[in-house]
């Protein structure tokens, strides 16, 4: 079973992602901020990480840099409420960029794609 780390500061979003992805057959761990996320990242080997960009303590792009410095091979998908960060060159380090939507099909598809790559 593939392991997914979901990082998002919104509790409901975490719940939604967890349930949807578990239904897809993934093992899901959730983190509500950068600190929790790094703890989980250091204690478990994940197959894929989804990162919310806008978070109160540290933004997802900074977190992305730390993760990629430590384990370059783990695919990271950036999730954002809107597409503004698509123009930010720092997101190039990520493996994919998904605009958040109530329709999670795009996210699921992206996860499958990065796992297959």
């Amino acid at each position, binding site marked *: 079973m593939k392991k997914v780390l979901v990082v998002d500061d*919104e509790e*409901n*979003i975490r719940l*939604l992602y967890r*349930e*949807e992805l578990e239904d897809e057959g993934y093992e899901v761990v959730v983190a509500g901020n950068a600190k929790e996320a790094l703890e989980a990242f250091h204690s478990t080997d994940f197959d894929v990480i989804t990162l919310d960009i*806008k978070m109160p303590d540290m933004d997802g792009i900074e977190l992305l840099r730390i993760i990629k410095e430590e384990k370059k091979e783990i695919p990271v998908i950036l999730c954002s*409420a*809107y*597409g*503004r960060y698509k*123009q930010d060159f720092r997101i190039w380090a990520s493996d994919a960029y998904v605009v*958040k*939507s*109530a*329709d*999670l099909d795009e996210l699921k598809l992206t996860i499958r794609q990065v796992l297959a790559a």
Partner: protein
Amino acid sequence: MIDDHLGLEILKEIARIASSTLDLDETLEKIIRVIQNKMRIDASAIYLADDPGNLLHLRASSGLPVEASGHVKLELGKGVTGWVAEHKRTLALPEAMQDPRFVHFPEIQEERFVSMLSVPILFDDACIGVINVHTLDRRDFSAVETAIVETIANQVAGALRNALLFHNSQRLLKEQSILYDISLAVQTTLKLEHGLWVILSGITMGEAGGFNRAMLFLVNEKTQSLDGEMGIGPDSPEDASRIWAEWGKKNIDLLNWIMIEADRDEFKHSKFNRFVCSLSFPLGGERNILTETALQKQPFVVTDPRQHHLVSQEFIETLGIEAFATVPLVAHETTLGVILVDNRYNRRPITQEQLRLLTRFTTHASWVIENTRLFSKLLDTNQELLSTKEQLIEKEKLAALGEVSAEVAHEIKNPLVSIGGFARRLEDKLKIISAQHAEIADLKKAVEYSNIIHNEVDRLEQLLKNILLYSQAGTLQRGDTNINEIIEDVISIFKSGFYGRNINLNYHPGDRLPPIQLDRQKIRQVFINLFYNAMDCMSEGGEFSIETRAHPQDGPPEHVTVRINDTGGGIPEEAFQNIFNPFFTTKSSGTGLGLSICRKIIEGHGGTIHIVNNIGTGITIYIHLPLQKPADYYKN
């Protein structure tokens, strides 16, 4: 016999009478009475000459059978009185009937008297009347008596002059007050035709201009012609007398009457007005009196139109004129029009007095026309300012919208994702349960409700996406792009949708289009919006065509044109005014941002988009995109 003393007494009294009243008839009556009483004669009469001076009217008398009035008229040169008037010399006749100049006039029965003294009333070397005294017994009039009557004649002349001056000043006063009322009425109304009506009414009103008819022609700059604008005058001679009578009665409160009449607009329906409005004379064509009045800025008075080289027989017959006058309307050295007046119905000759008034009225008319033109110009400018202001407000609104929307969208997006995401999950779960328990009707309802939440959230997400797109439309990531590639990409997205709705897609890409500096994503968004709209309005099928062309020689800046055409029936006129306004939509589920985003993006590229709306058929959209960046273009 009258002695010097009595003579002096008579003259004193006459002088007192002459200076005591301004009413001429009253003065003459009093003078007659003094002559009668003091001079001990049997009859006396005062005759006054009429305006041309051909006839002598009996104005005051005593001892004659006829009451003093205008009934008795003596011809100049005829009889003793006529001779005195003609020769301006006094005649003292002890036996009047023996004189060869004596003529028998039955109505005054002068033959009853024996002696007669006839004295001319002279004024400025012209005879303006005669004073006669008669006695039943023979009398040799003394030098003193003759001198007294001659002095009385001088006094009468003075009284006459005073009366005339008084009459003139009364008339001027009246005229002034009419002009004042008319100019007030003109200033009170800002409607051109009302102002003109007031002036033409003034020209034709008995108390003022007194012309029977007035026709106004205005210069039409576009067609270079003099066009009939208004005609005031009766439709027929019978109508004329009725109207004059009505005006006579109503001019007590002239201003009020003018305002009421002007508002009633009744003049428009008169046959005469309609006739005048149907006339038109080209300014560059054959010369006639009207066009010459306009071109030379000169008035004309035509007493015999048949003899006038600028008046044709046709002109006479069309307008039904005899003697007439024309005056130009001039403001700031420019001829605005021409007024033609005549006295068709009472056939009175046009007097200097009438012409003087006409000039005053036309000056007024010129002001009215000029004022109205300036006023309407002012209105236009005002309108322009207002629309510029509206455009500015729209731009400010958009800028503010852009800033706020990015923030708001982000804050809304997260809860929306939760709501929508769970609604979908709920829907899925309920569907499964509902399939297992088909007997529970409420479960089916619950599926339906969660589906509604799911769909509504989708709609909100779309709205947010559009708002964000709109707020970001300003910043462009441009690169050399072939527009055909973008269009082909969009066609591939819509191909199946069009096919499913039975819409025929005709694509005509232009050959060898030069690359344009475009933001691929944004231009793609433009075509997606436009294709989507077209698909939406042709849900029953139709023709959709898109064509690209290069215009290398089509004036600066060189540009590429995209022409899109659909058969979706066009846009209702009201809606069409607003299609580029943000948040305006005709669709029940649209955000109303589609076309305003398109325009913002196209204009951001220095291009233009405009829509030709054929109601009932469809719309054609033209997009022009310059080959150069706008910044480069402005640098050149």
